[in-house]
């Protein structure tokens, strides 16, 4: 569906995207994950043909995005970041214009526009000016626009940014429903979004791909910087003793009356629970709670995208 080969984008001396390659197969929902400024939007703009790459190739359904640009764009629905729309147009009017522009034949115009109005739950705002819509509605109008010519591929750049939790839920549900018949590429820096929606994740940082896998596998394979929490009545030298365990990177403690809560930062894949318990028993600490936090995708993300990597 999408094939990206050695894609590079330079702005003067800054390289925003450094020779990335990946593929997205038909029917996949792929999350394009990275911190702000990682090169997500730049990559998406190149995929849609808006920006030409410095080097490298992109093809959509076998059509080269630059040499066969019009064909590629016919199969593509794109929602840019911040959903730019014409504020002076009415929702229905705007969608009819977009549908006609994207080549929906005149006889099917009303039907297609009606379908996407329904699908994106903006039917009740059909006659409203876009400029007077709330952000959530704008986003849904943007999605309706991306869908109006029934494209095989959807590229959505941060579709839930700036929405409130209810709106986010609606938009996510919507994207999930859309994905049944389509291939979707979503960029985001919101992790739960990826875990909820995407069948695969591409992690990008500083213009390079750091990992590509399912969210589940990423979590398993990168038991990133884990944490172990210990609540105990312990002596003043307890932190020292815990720090002496080889797989413990750092210990922080918070005193609450007699009880102290220790947070142990751990090496990847380390499980020092037994060792901690042995020390506690040896020193006769009274333990109230001990548990190791399961690595979250968040930790994986942090590990893959922090500066020292």
């Amino acid at each position: 569906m999408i094939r990206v080969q050695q894609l590079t984008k330079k702005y003067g001396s800054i390289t925003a995207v450094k020779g990335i390659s990946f593929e997205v197969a038909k029917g996949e929902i792929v999350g394009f994950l990275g911190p702000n400024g990682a090169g997500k939007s730049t990559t998406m703009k190149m995929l849609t043909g808006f920006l030409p790459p410095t080097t490298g190739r992109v093809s959509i359904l076998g059509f080269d995005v630059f040499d066969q640009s019009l064909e590629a764009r016919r199969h593509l629905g794109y929602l840019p970041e911040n959903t730019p729309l014409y504020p002076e147009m009415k929702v229905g009017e705007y969608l009819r214009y977009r549908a006609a522009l994207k080549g929906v034949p005149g006889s099917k115009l009303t039907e297609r526009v009606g379908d996407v109005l329904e699908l994106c739950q903006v039917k009740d705002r059909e006659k409203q000016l876009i400029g007077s819509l709330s952000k959530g509605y704008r986003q849904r109008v943007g999605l309706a626009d991306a869908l109006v010519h029934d494209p095989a591929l959807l590229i959505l750049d941060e579709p839930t940014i700036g929405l409130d939790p209810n709106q986010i839920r609606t938009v996510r549900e919507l994207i999930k429903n859309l994905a049944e018949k389509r291939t979707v590429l979503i960029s985001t820096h919101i992790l739960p979004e990826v875990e909820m929606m995407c069948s695969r994740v591409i992690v990008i940082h500083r213009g390079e791909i750091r990992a590509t896998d399912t969210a589940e596998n990423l979590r398993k394979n990168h038991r990133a910087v884990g944490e172990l929490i210990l609540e105990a009545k312990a002596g003043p030298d307890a932190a020292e003793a815990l720090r002496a365990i080889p797989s413990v990177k750092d210990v922080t403690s918070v005193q609450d009356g007699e009880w102290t809560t220790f947070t142990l930062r751990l090496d990847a894949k380390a499980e020092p629970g037994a060792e901690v318990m042995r020390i506690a028993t040896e020193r006769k600490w009274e333990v109230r709670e001990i548990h190791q936090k399961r690595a979250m995708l968040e930790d994986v993300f942090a590990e893959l995208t922090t500066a020292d990597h």
Partner: protein
Amino acid sequence: MRTFFVQTMREVRGIFYTPVAYVVMALLLALLGYTFQAVVSYLNKSPSDVTVLQVTFGNGLFFFIFAITTSLITMRTFSEEFRMGTIEMLTTAPVKEWQIVLAKFFGTVIFYAVALSPTLIFFAIFTYISNGHPAAKGPGAFYSAYLMLLLIAMLFIAIGNLASSLVKDQVNAAVLSISVKIIYLWVPMMLEELLNVTDPRVRKAAEFVSPIMHMRDFSSGIVDSRRLVWYLSLTAFFLILTHHIFHSRKLKS
């Protein structure tokens, strides 16, 4: 072709959605109405060879207002799309860049055709109340006068579009476009009238470029094909330039 048509209609609507469109229409009609009335009452007192049509369109004031209003209408065409980011929506739809440039151009041309068409009523009224006294030298003069109006409008719109594609801010775009047009109008006028240049070569050059002089010719029914070539090629040149600038600006956004 359909894509181009759809986009052109969107541009026409876009113009009619802005309040400035109505200000411009009202301004043009009020000004032309006033000139028309002044011309008629002047010719009533001292009859001469010049026709009402010739003086109504062939005066400097009209051209300056025309230069300013075309700039106000075109200032937002490109700069607004870039500012709002809608350029991304527009250029990722299956539309070619030249279709966008031409649609924006013809959209404004259509707006001007609509804005200026009520002036035809002036001449109809004149013919009616003057018991058939002609407002022009024959019906052909009407066609040629309105043809020249269209040609000049096209050139001015193309200049305005170019300015809008060049400059980030729409106000700056308007200022740039007005300046260029005023200089273009002013220089031949100055040569002809203010400086009383008698050198025939300078006069010839002024005649070749001055829209006011062209209008005087065309509104008396003289269709000079050199003028057609002049306006059409200049318009085409500015449109091609606009296309190039639009293209390179898109790459940088």
